[in-house]
């Protein structure tokens, strides 16, 4: 026998079982008919996770229909009940071992379900990938591997199944391990290990296999309890995408709380915070919470809130960081690997909306560098469109700067989704920040006068009011704001031209009033995104202000911190 014990997953053997009793999210993938269902059925039976009598009922049913019992039937029977006639998507299976509970997401082998696979697998902390020992590495073995890598699943174990059908041959196992390891290396994934199993016979699932003495690593069940829960990392640089700034005045509350979920790192009272991309700074005055003991620190994974020493204006979409720590990139161009799920292909030049952390900004596909077949890894460098289910390397350009990290450094703030026509239709991870801006605000050049000086002169920050009640109402509103002492501008043009002009007016510190009555809902959204939500008030039946009353608009402008109270 060629195989020595060194070949069989030294990394797996060295992992100690964890003493963590929190629920672990697990995804299982693999090519159609490579035996996922049988393995899941085995795991459910071995952990006593089946409803009473279920095993017996399925066995009896097999006998009646004179077909041999298979563990896969168990899963089918469970799914039928779970689905109650509804098409299965990423089915969740619940079970527990002696040490902790698991949610197992069964990744559908069919490509049509990629959307559901992503929904299920993106939350997974570990993955099992099943490969048939006879058939070897196939299309979906590779595709699932690629997707799991893009989704950032760090713990992967490969199960080489149906070993009974190849006579428990160690060399067959070694060949598949070599081939698949080489494939994974190309996409930058290092698996924790490979386990030779037989779902049908139960080898190495819940008990060691007498038929494969050459394998001395852990069984699948033992391996599960070695996966580590993904814990938010408090030792990395502090990142908190700002979800909102709350000022609830009820009951005399005068706290102004910056709220968000801490992706990484920690922050404490007295720390200097830098908000990006604006670059505004202040110090943490208090860490807030409701029905918790008073505390001075917030850490990764927590939904936090803090107040600042100075009243600076920050808004949703910025990233809170701590001065002195490695800062995120701020740019309008970035290179990314992305996967596309939309029926309509994604073409060069297409306008989309990019959501990264809490930032939401229109972007254009500047270039498609190469399209990758997620299964064969064959690349095509001459394409100008990305079809559904393809993976591509692209350069994206945003209309205004955003703050982000490289996915390889900080995953949480290094990935984004693409929204197109109201739906999330793609996702990607940032590989590189690029120089140069193009059409953003910076395209018009920057003078010596900074924002603070303009605010001091004008008595307000820049803002945008989109009025959908008609030109007359828009003109009257501009006049009222102007007469009230604001520096204003008025625009009445097609949405595209307005979107071009708005950044210039905002840079000049003006409050721009736009007649948007002829704009479609998507155009209003586009112009609003160009300026940023925090700077924009939409006045109209479905907007922030229902009526074009100057007083009502003024109140919202004050609420947003654009006009002073």
């Amino acid at each position, binding site marked *: 026998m060629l195989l020595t014990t060194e070949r069989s997953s030294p990394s797996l053997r060295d992992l100690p079982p964890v003493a963590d009793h*929190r629920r672990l999210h697990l995804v299982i993938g693999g090519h159609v008919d490579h035996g996922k269902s049988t393995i899941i059925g085995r795991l459910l039976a071995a952990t006593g996770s089946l*409803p*009473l*009598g*279920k095993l017996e009922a399925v066995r009896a049913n097999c006998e009646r229909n004179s077909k041999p019992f298979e563990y896969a039937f168990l899963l089918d029977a469970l799914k039928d*009940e*779970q*689905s*109650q006639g*509804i*098409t299965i*998507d990423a*089915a969740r299976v*619940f079970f527990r071992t002696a040490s902790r509970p698991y949610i197992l997401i069964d990744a559908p082998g069919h490509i049509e379900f990629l*959307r*559901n696979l*992503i*929904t299920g697998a*993106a*939350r997974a902390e570990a993955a099992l990938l099943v490969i048939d020992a006879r058939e070897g590495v196939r299309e979906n073995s590779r595709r699932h591997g690629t997707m799991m890598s893009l*989704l950032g699943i760090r713990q992967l174990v490969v199960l080489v199944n149906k070993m009974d059908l190849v006579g428990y041959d160690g060399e067959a196992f070694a060949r598949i391990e070599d081939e698949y390891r080489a494939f994974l290396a190309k996409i930058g994934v290092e698996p924790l290990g490979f386990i030779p199993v037989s779902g049908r016979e139960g080898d190495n699932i819940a008990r060691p296999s007498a038929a494969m003495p050459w394998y001395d690593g852990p069984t699948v069940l033992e391996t599960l309890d070695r996966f580590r829960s993904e814990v938010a990392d*408090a030792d990395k640089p502090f990142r908190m995408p700002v*979800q*909102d700034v*709350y000022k*609830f005045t*009820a009951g005399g*509350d005068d706290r102004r*709380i910056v*709220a968000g*979920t801490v992706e990484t790192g920690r922050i404490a009272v007295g720390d200097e915070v830098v908000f990006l991309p604006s670059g505004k700074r202040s110090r943490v005055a208090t860490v*807030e*919470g*409701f*029905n918790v*003991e*008073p*505390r*001075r*620190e917030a*850490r990764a*994974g*927590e*939904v936090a*809130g803090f107040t600042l020493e100075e009243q600076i204006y920050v808004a*949703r979409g910025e990233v809170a960081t701590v001065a002195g720590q490695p800062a995120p990139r701020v740019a309008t161009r970035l290179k990314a690997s992305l996967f596309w*799920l939309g029926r309509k292909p994604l073409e060069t030049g297409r306008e989309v909306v990019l*959501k990264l952390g*809490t930032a939401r900004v229109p972007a254009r596909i500047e270039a498609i560098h190469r399209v990758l077949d997620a299964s064969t890894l064959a690349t095509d460098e001459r394409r100008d469109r990305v079809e559904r289910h393809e993976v591509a390397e692209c350069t994206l350009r945003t209309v205004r700067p955003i703050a982000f990290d490289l996915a390889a450094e900080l995953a949480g703030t290094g990935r*984004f*989704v693409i929204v197109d026509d*109201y*739906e*999330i239709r793609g*996702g990607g991870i940032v590989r590189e920040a690029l120089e140069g801006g193009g059409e953003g605000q910076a395209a018009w050049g920057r003078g010596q006068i900074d924002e603070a000086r303009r605010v001091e002169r004008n008595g307000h920050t820049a803002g945008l009011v989109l009025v959908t009640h008609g030109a007359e109402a828009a003109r009257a509103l501009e006049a009222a704001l102007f007469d009230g002492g604001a520096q204003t501008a008025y625009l009445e043009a097609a949405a595209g031209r307005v979107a071009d002009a708005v950044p210039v007016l905002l840079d000049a510190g003006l409050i721009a009033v736009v007649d948007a009555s002829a704009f479609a*809902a998507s155009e209003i*959204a586009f112009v609003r995104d160009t300026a940023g939500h925090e700077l924009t008030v939409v006045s109209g039946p*479905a*907007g922030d202000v*229902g009526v074009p009353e100057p007083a009502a608009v003024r109140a919202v402008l004050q609420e947003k911190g654009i006009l002073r109270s």
Partner: protein
Amino acid sequence: MTTAVAERRTSTDHLDQLEARSVHILREAYANFRQLCMLWSIGKDSTVLLWLARKAFFGHVPIPLVHIDTSFKIPEMIAYRDRLAQEWRLTMIVGQNAEALAAKRTFPDGAVDRITCCSLLKTEALKKTLSGEWPRRRLNLATGQYEVDRNREPYTGVIVGARADEEGSRSKERYFSPRTQASAWDVGEQPPEFWNQYKTEFAPGTHVRIHPLLDWTELNIWEYIQRERIPTVSLYYNHGDGKRYRSLGCGPCTQCVHSDARDVGEIIEELKSGKFANIAERSGRGQDAADGGGLETLRRDGYM
């Protein structure tokens, strides 16, 4: 003091994780939906949801709470609702199918069966209240009286306390689930949801249901009520007659279960190891009738 707190913080347990995800979702909903409301059935799940809103917004509840009053709710539930609304300064909105009640087209009046009654007094009333077609009554905190609310705008974001473990179809819900104008749910064509990014954009005429409690189990709910000391209706507890409600609904259609649990701790014990163990675990599926209780049937009846 700081050390003790820091220690508790490093060992975040499963309740902390569930709480964090739910709070994150509530804040996303609040940031993205102008016409947002939260359904409050007065039951334990939606009361936990309400508490999570206080967590998310630092003691405040800046989202209106919508309660559909069938007029057959157990009186204690209504008293509890109005008491908390005052105490927590809630924007309390109540909707009702006044026509059906006036015409006595209800099950307790003997005019229709249970299912029809539910669809008239609950489903229909909910749809028309959310759309603004029927008047909404709003609690005036100064007078303690309900008055007709001036806001008739349709709610485009509706926060609901549904849990995935309640029944099979709910295990396929997303956190942000789009609904068409007719409130229909297209299970096959659901948007993907990953990396904390949700469907927060929607076409005119559609709305989004938001489910912050999707990952919670019945046991988690009670554990959290215990940890946070959330006030609950006393109907959930046995007051000496060996009976209590496991879920709350209309008086005529909700029955007690046999249980000796007198407080939250005893309910948790009962769910973990007592007669109710395995039921929540098993996603409330029918095959568990083997555990002898007809409890499933009870629960479904009470649950509606």
